[in-house]
């Protein structure tokens, strides 16, 4: 907070000091007013003289004026153009002469953005009507409206089939993104991020296991969203092929804001956000700690008590505690961004400085993330035909995180397992001043180095240290050269460097490692990207025009990781490597070079048929020696058939119509050094029972063959996609509808193919798996009212992706979890979409099972006549454990959609809303499974009652079998010793539907530009009140269904096991513009 106010103060001071700007020179003054057709003033319209590259932006009242120096005024006729995204550009011819020229414009809305330039990657551009494939554009307004500080999260519900899932509501948590289904079974499926033409890192790197440790930011969250002008999402291979072997998971093209010619404009936006936990876990408050109805009593200091809450019903008046709510307070984020931009006829610049300081909702000092960003982007026209530019951003981030997940030192694990009558907030023993927990409530003074069963959550929140400090600089320099009117040459050299310091420390008495553990890691990432493009445009006849682009790209990426785990703290603090007795260092480095060439040709025929073809040749150092170079083609056609029908004016019921078809191929590169058969240094040999011998003995180093055989002919995975679509403008462009169908096949997908051990190796990475993804995307936008005073629009999106793993080299499935996790583990399974969860279930009908020699499906009194999937009830009235390993959950949604609306009233008020809809997509609620075992879940209040499986909400559903309908006693045994909990029973009973409808965004903003505002020295002030994730409608019984324990670190989604919760936020923002 203190830092924040200091930043605000400095910002305002800076703003006020820029009070005067240069007065107009002698010469011509061009001025006027730009309005909509309805007469409403339009701010921020770019009005400029193309020939002289001089111009200005309109003010908030729609007026503009700029001066042309006398030296450049020669009575010539020039083109004056007014341009604004969302409107058709207008040009008039004017004759320049000294004095004042007044020219007003009435802009015609162009909701389909026809004729607007779209960035299509690798330096290629086109206009929207010529696109043969979908490119979803998200502009700065939508990004700002999301109020998200992480650009990936800001893209949630912005484009069909672009699924975004936030790890948790903690400051700095990663967001996972998946476009049109998973194409690979390695990596995490994140798209390539490109900022102003330069690829940047978006890795999520955590120092500990994804099932525990802490959240970690995805590296693209280093971008200040306020710097972004627009985001173009290249979803399929047909669009992304221009990026070749790095583009199979899609490409996110980010264009940062640029300065515009005209007076310098300033803005200071400050945002305050209040967070609270969005959804908790239901806990019981009736029964206390103990077992078998007998209370656990601490007989003497040093006692260790049972972990369960199966004690007696608490006496009336016994104080109980809400173990969820107790841990959370109101979070607060303050974000301030100062921008200044402008330019002369030769030089433009954009400057921004921002500070985001986010204190999360978890109690204690260890839940915050601070991001300071600065950016300067400038360009200068050195010669008439040569412009040079530069764009550099610096980021300084600091984070403190709290341990999570499957981790006896995790926040929620100890909290939610606590018996209701234990006051966790008293986490320090009053006598010994040592860490106390519900399992170890009275530590003795000697208990300084033993574990506490599960850590007290307040101890976790207050005493553990998990820190991030990161500096990153990224950007580019470039030169644009127009040697000939029809030829443009563009050169760019980009870089991305980050140094990331991490500490993860568990103090003495931590239950994970009671003698203290710390992990110190330094992560250094740096890459350099060089590109050289030439684009030639030629109009052969009025009906035939074309563009040819040739390009070259060189890219070098280095990764350096030094990580040392220190065990056994000497003194309780500091958490420094010299203060431990044992170290285990590891080091990982890699260097990857890529060298690529591409060509793209586009032909425009009769202003209605647009053909595009491109080919890219990629050479990667990670490809096998015999596979050094690969080709990635694409081609497509777009046909504006309404032009053939004679509708050039874009009027009428069918005001615009375009058919499009495209095909493209992309790849995914193998990891570094997969060609190499290496030796293991420092390995050991064990047999799975815990006993082992090191290969190094007595201080002498042993080496032996790695289990994985290098593959000399590894090549990129290849995704081939066909995309078909139609775009329609309807009712005088009052509505537009886009429908897209795609069909992609991923081949040569790399998997670890098991080898017979007798070969001397356990596995080899092979290009062998195949995956299919097909889907539909529909977007409908309606603008029922477009008056000067009232404008209302609505947008609907629908997307569906059907993924299927076609082949895994004959295997049925590939395990994708780092070890089984309470009987539930991620996998890639043939016949299913990528990333399904496997585990065990109860015996159910229709699965061909035999129970005690009885073919239950075909035996009367068992499953005969019962529907498939009916729960089989054994003779004792209980379900029966089925040990068959099978797919139990598919976290991929059946479909996703969104509803968006914006209402503008009297130019000043804007009300917006965004609903994010996910239908289907299972979540494993492992938290509930565990809490049933411990007797703290609300559901365990059923203890001591008689229930019938399948009835009255108890395992509701159809049942069959000899014991169906029989009453049984539900008690501690059912949950703790029998098969009714996550520890003792099959995981499938904790799979829940993760469908939700989420009120993702809602906002009201008010814009002031009245004279008193100008008297204050501002052109306008805007105020905004907004909410994010205010309401979620879901049947999910755990925390918010938008969650995943491993976030963007992992590939398998849908895992909820003592995750830290999500948040809902209230936002107030004020923008001062000048």
């Amino acid at each position, binding site marked *: 907070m203190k830092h924040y106010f200091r930043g605000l103060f400095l910002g305002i001071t800076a703003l006020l000091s820029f009070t005067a700007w240069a007065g107009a020179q002698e010469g011509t003054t061009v001025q006027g007013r730009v309005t909509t057709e309805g007469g409403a003033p339009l701010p921020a319209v770019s009005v400029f003289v193309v020939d002289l590259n001089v111009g200005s932006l309109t003010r908030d009242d729609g007026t503009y004026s700029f001066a042309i120096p006398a030296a450049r005024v020669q009575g010539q006729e020039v083109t004056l153009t007014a341009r604004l995204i969302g409107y058709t550009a207008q040009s008039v011819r004017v004759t320049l002469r000294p004095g004042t020229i007044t020219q007003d414009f009435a802009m015609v809305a162009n909701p389909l953005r026809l004729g607007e330039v779209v960035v299509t990657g690798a330096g290629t551009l086109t206009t929207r009507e010529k696109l043969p494939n979908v490119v979803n554009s998200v502009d700065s307004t939508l990004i700002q409206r999301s109020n998200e500080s992480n650009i990936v999260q800001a893209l949630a519900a912005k484009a069909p089939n672009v699924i975004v899932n936030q790890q948790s509501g903690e400051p700095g948590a990663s967001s996972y993104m998946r476009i049109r289904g998973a194409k690979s079974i390695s990596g995490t499926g994140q798209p390539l991020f490109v900022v102003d033409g330069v690829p940047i890192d978006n890795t999520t790197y955590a120092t500990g296991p994804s099932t525990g440790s802490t959240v970690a930011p995805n590296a693209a969250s280093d971008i200040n969203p306020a710097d972004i002008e627009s985001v173009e999402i290249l979803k399929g291979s047909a669009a992304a092929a221009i990026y070749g072997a790095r583009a199979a998971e899609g490409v996110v093209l980010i264009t940062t804001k640029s300065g515009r010619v005209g007076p310098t404009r300033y803005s200071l936006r400050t945002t305050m956000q209040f967070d609270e936990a969005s959804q908790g876990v239901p806990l019981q408050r009736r029964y206390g700690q103990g077992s078998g109805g007998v209370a656990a009593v601490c007989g003497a200091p040093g006692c260790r008590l049972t972990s369960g809450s199966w004690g007696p019903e608490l006496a009336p008046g016994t104080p109980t505690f809400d173990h969820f709510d107790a841990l959370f307070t109101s979070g607060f984020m303050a974000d301030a961004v100062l921008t200044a931009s402008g330019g002369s006829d030769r030089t433009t610049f954009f400057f921004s400085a921002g500070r985001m300081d986010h204190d999360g909702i978890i109690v204690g000092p260890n839940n915050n993330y601070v991001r300071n960003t600065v950016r300067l982007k400038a360009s200068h026209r050195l010669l008439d*035909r040569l412009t040079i530019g530069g764009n550099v951003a610096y980021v300084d981030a600091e984070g403190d995180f709290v341990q999570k997940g499957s981790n006896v030192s995790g926040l929620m694990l100890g909290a939610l397992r606590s018996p209701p009558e234990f006051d966790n907030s008293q986490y320090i023993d009053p006598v010994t001043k040592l860490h106390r927990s519900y399992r170890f409530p009275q530590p003795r003074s000697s208990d300084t180095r033993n574990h506490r069963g599960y850590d007290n959550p307040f101890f976790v929140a207050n005493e553990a240290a998990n820190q991030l400090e990161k500096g990153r600089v990224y950007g580019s320099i470039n030169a644009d050269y127009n*040697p*000939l009117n029809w*030829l443009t*040459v563009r*050169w760019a050299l980009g870089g991305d460097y980050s140094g990331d310091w991490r500490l993860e420390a568990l103090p003495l008495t931590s239950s994970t490692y009671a003698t203290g553990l710390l992990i110190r890691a330094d992560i250094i990432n740096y890459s350099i990207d*060089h590109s*050289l493009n030439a684009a030639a445009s030629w109009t052969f006849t009025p009906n035939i025009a074309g563009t040819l682009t040739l390009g*070259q790209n*060189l890219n070098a990426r280095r990764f350096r990781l030094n990580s040392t785990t220190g065990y056994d703290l000497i003194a309780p603090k500091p958490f420094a490597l010299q203060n431990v007795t044992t170290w285990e260092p590891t080091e*990982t480095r890699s*260097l990857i*070079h*890529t*060298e690529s060439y591409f060509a793209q040709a586009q032909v425009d025929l009769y202003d209605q048929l647009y053909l595009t073809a491109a080919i890219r040749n990629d*050479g*990667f*150092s990670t490809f096998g*020696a015999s596979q050094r170079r690969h080709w990635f083609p694409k081609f497509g056609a777009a046909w504006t058939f309404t032009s053939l029908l004679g509708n050039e004016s874009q009027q009428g019921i069918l005001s615009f119509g375009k058919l499009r078809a495209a095909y493209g191929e992309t790849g995914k590169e193998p990891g*570094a*050094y997969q060609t*190499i*058969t*290496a*030796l293991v*240094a420092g*390995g*050991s*040999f*064990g*047999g*799975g*029972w*815990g*006993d*082992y*011998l*090191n*290969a*190094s*003995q*007595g201080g*002498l180093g*042993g*080496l*032996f*063959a790695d*289990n994985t*055989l*290098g593959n*000399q002919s590894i090549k990129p995975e290849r995704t081939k996609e066909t995309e078909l679509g139609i775009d329609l403008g309807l009712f005088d462009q009052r509505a537009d509808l886009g429908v897209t169908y795609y069909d992609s096949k991923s081949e040569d997908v790399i998997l670890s193919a*098991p*080898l*017979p*051990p*007798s*070969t*001397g*190796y*356990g596995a080899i990475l092979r290009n062998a798996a195949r995956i299919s993804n097909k889907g539909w995307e529909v977007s409908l936008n309606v603008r029922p009212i477009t008056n000067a005073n009232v404008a209302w629009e609505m947008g609907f999106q629908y997307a569906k992706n059907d993924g299927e793993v076609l082949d895994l080299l004959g295997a049925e499935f590939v395990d994708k979890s780092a070890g089984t996790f309470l009987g539930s583990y991620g996998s890639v399974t043939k016949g299913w979409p990528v990333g399904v969860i496997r585990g065990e279930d109860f015996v159910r009908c229709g699965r061909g099972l035999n129970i005690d020699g009885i073919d239950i499906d075909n035996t009367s009194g068992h499953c005969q006549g019962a529907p498939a999937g009916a729960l089989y009830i054994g003779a004792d009235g209980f379900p029966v454990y089925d040990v068959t390993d099978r797919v139990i959950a598919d976290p991929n949604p059946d479909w996703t959609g969104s509803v968006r609306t914006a209402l503008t009233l009297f130019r000043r008020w804007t009300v917006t809303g965004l609903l994010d809809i996910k239908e289907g997509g299972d979540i494993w609620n492992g938290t509930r499974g565990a809490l049933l075992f411990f007797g703290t879940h609300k559901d365990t209040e059923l203890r001591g009652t008689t229930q019938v499986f399948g009835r009255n909400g108890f395992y509701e559903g159809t049942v069959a079998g000899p014991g169906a309908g029989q009453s049984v006693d539900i008690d501690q045994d059912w949950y703790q010793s029998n098969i009714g909990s996550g520890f003792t029973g099959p995981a499938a009973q904790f799979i829940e539907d993760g469908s939700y409808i989420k009120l993702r965004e809602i906002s009201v903003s008010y814009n002031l530009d009245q004279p008193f505002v100008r008297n204050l020295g501002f052109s306008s002030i805007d105020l905004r009140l907004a909410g994010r994730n205010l309401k979620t409608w879901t049947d999910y019984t755990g925390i918010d269904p938008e969650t995943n324990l491993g976030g963007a670190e992992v590939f398998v989604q849908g895992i909820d096991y003592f995750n830290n919760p999500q948040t809902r936020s209230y936002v107030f923002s004020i923008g001062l513009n000048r």
Partner: protein
Amino acid sequence: MKRSLKIALVAALPIVSAACNDFLTGGELENDPNRPTVAEPSQYFLAVQSRTWTFQTGQWARLVCMWMQQCTGTDRQYTSLGVYEVSEGIFDGSFNEIYAGGGLNDIKQMKAAAQSSGDLIFVGVAQVLEALMIGTAADLFGDVPYSEAASGIGGAGPVIATPKLDDQAAVYAAIQTLLDEAIDNLGSGEGSGPGSADFVYGGDPDAWTELAYTLKARFYMHTAETTPGNYALALAAAANGISSSANDYVTVHSGAAGEANLWYQFIEEQRQDYISPGAFLLDSILEARTDPRLDEYFDKRTPTAPWEGATPGSALTNTTSRFDADRIDQAASQPIVTYVENLLIQAEAAYRTNDQVTALARLNAARATDGLGPVALAGAALLNEIMIEKYIQLFQQLEVWNDWKRTCVPNLTPALTAAEIPRRFIYPTSERQTNPNIPLPSAQPTRNDNDPTNAGCRGQTIG
């Protein structure tokens, strides 16, 4: 205009041409900076040594110990393993030990590296370790991949992806040849061998030569049931075999993490009470015969508790005896091939070749190593005593099972209601699912070729 175009091209040229030269190859681009790819023979040796020890004294030794009723599984999975509830999945990992990291693959790499540096003594050492590894594999599984196994040396050569099974007899024959070559190489005087990396022999070629001869004798014995002429060959080989207990091939351990005796790690650190002394060895043999080794092998649970082994399938009681603390000390050595075994091979082979005088002398020499006085026996009782002595002396070794399969001494009653004690391991799932040469478990034999049914057990009983 033309000039400016030229300038652009000239400016671009160095960048493009620089790019074409080795931009994708060399240095850290091609060479893994994180993992080594070459090793000295002694570095392979250390890994192979550790792997050999885990293979010979780890989980398979414990399993055989239970099946041979020297031990009993008394908790969780070991209860079922001990009563032969095994499937192919249990043996996952076994082929990894034989062939992958530290196994045949690295033995071959070690051999190749030693060969290229002209260190013939080291080559000989590698050949002995190869014979021990593959010979043991043939003992356990019968037909095993060998001629086509671990065929790609360090990924440099082509790897045969589905190695065929070689007949057990062919594997044993190849091992005899290999050991002969080893003996030649060890006697060549060329090279220096593994030196201090060899914790057992310190690289002494003479000790390795003795080990090679004893292994020859051991593997001749394994095939003698079907080829009786091998008894004489075994006797001849053993004459040059391990000549004193000081030259035993045993594991060497310390108290450091990852260097401790595996029985210690399993029993004391990892899986307490999963495995307990077997009633057959403890009660029916050692206690019944008032053999002084009872006290050396086992400890009473409490000073006042009786001697009590666990019978197969039974659970632990409050008085079940334990393994002797010294015997499973973290630094205790575990025997693999010993002087005593060499003596008892000679005893049995002499008996089988009708030289009962030598047989008795060697038996008594073996007894003397444990401080026992001589016995005077003849005929079937002598042979029985030789095998019982071997059963006692080779406690915890895989070789006990090989002897029992040949001789059915001691006469063990299968656990619980099982019809038979297993006579071979099942090929592991990991190999069977990836190598079409491996038959389904149901199609695999229950006995190996060197263990024919018709020869069977000859009904010897405990003397």
